[in-house]
């Protein structure tokens, strides 16, 4: 599992951990019921605060990405298809906004974009 924390970037550290682990889970790099490193060992290995790591894990648990088994540790939760679908929809929306911006920059209309999509399909 690769995690890269940047102390200087200004992005909150708990957010960096949260986003990266979430991305790993969604992309499938971490499978269902895979064990996650304990909060303390992750914090110490990355040289970040335990309090912050716990915050990230708590957030992930709240959103259903992981579950805790007492005395055993944290594990990746089974893929929640609703959650995943929502996540993908959000990504598609973001990409579409980007496409619209780019299209406007080179003077393409909505029809032109749909034509392009048909071309790709065939």
């Amino acid at each position, binding site marked *: 599992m690769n995690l890269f924390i940047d102390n200087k970037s200004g992005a909150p*550290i*708990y957010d960096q951990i949260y986003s990266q682990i979430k991305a790993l889970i969604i992309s499938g790099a971490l499978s269902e019921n895979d064990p996650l490193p304990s909060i303390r060992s992750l914090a110490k290995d990355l*040289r*970040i605060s335990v309090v912050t790591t716990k915050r990230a894990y708590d957030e992930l648990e709240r959103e259903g990405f992981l579950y805790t088994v007492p005395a055993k540790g944290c594990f990746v939760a089974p893929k929640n298809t609703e959650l995943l679908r929502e996540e993908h929809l959000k990504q598609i929306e973001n990409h579409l906004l980007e496409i619209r911006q780019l299209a406007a920059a080179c003077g393409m209309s909505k029809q032109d974009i749909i034509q392009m999509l048909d071309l790709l399909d065939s």
Partner: protein
Amino acid sequence: MNAIEIRNIAKKYKGFSLGPVSLTLPSGCILGLIGENGAGKTTTIKALLGMNRPDSGEISLLGQPLSADLRNEIGVVLDEVGLPENLHIRQIEKIMKYSFRNWQSDAFAEYIKKFNLPENKRFKTFSKGMKMKLGLAIALSHDAKLLVLDEPTAGLDPLVREELLDLLNDFTRDEGHAVLISSHIVSDLEKVCDYIAFLHKGQLMLCEEKDRLLEQYGFLQTTEENLNALEPDAIKGRRVTQYGAEAIVDRTRVPQTFDIRPVTIEELFVYMAKEG
């Protein structure tokens, strides 16, 4: 359980008064106590260890009031390590073995080897760094649950300082362990602490999670007029020159339009101390 609980301790000396100071250090965490020389860090730590008697307030360590027996579980390194000058490490170890209940000879031998300390030279021939390392080896070899370090990195080179921070990091892998470390070299503390407390002129300015501090505050450079237009509460410290103004601001109270860069704990302390 809280490793350290200090409630409202205060102490008055001629020309200096400390407190009231209240601090809590949860188990499994590292608290960095930052302050300029003479801010009261050493006084606070000595009150914690029973070396002086506060005029008021309560202290509890590892859930119990302070007692001589409790020191079996507390490892202390003050800025000057005062071991007998004419003894070697072997002789010093014997003294410690007879004093501490859970002395671990193997762990001590490992640390001595790791720190490259000479076994057959007298203590008075050691350099400052070596003395501190020996003090640390002793503090880590009697199964202590709490480490209290007062300015351990002063006068040490960057490599040794990094080694020390690594050691503290490893020490707190066990959630039953905790560390209180005081320093005026803020950059060291910033790397390793979970909580930060600022002491300035005997008063506790704040005690917070380090990462929350870094998220909440930012560094702003703008014109003096813009600065004055902001809420007074949002500004934690400022510096105005003829070329503009700089300030540490609370991100949550400043409009998003301003370009706020991340701040370091050192800058935060310096600006807040100047303002206070």
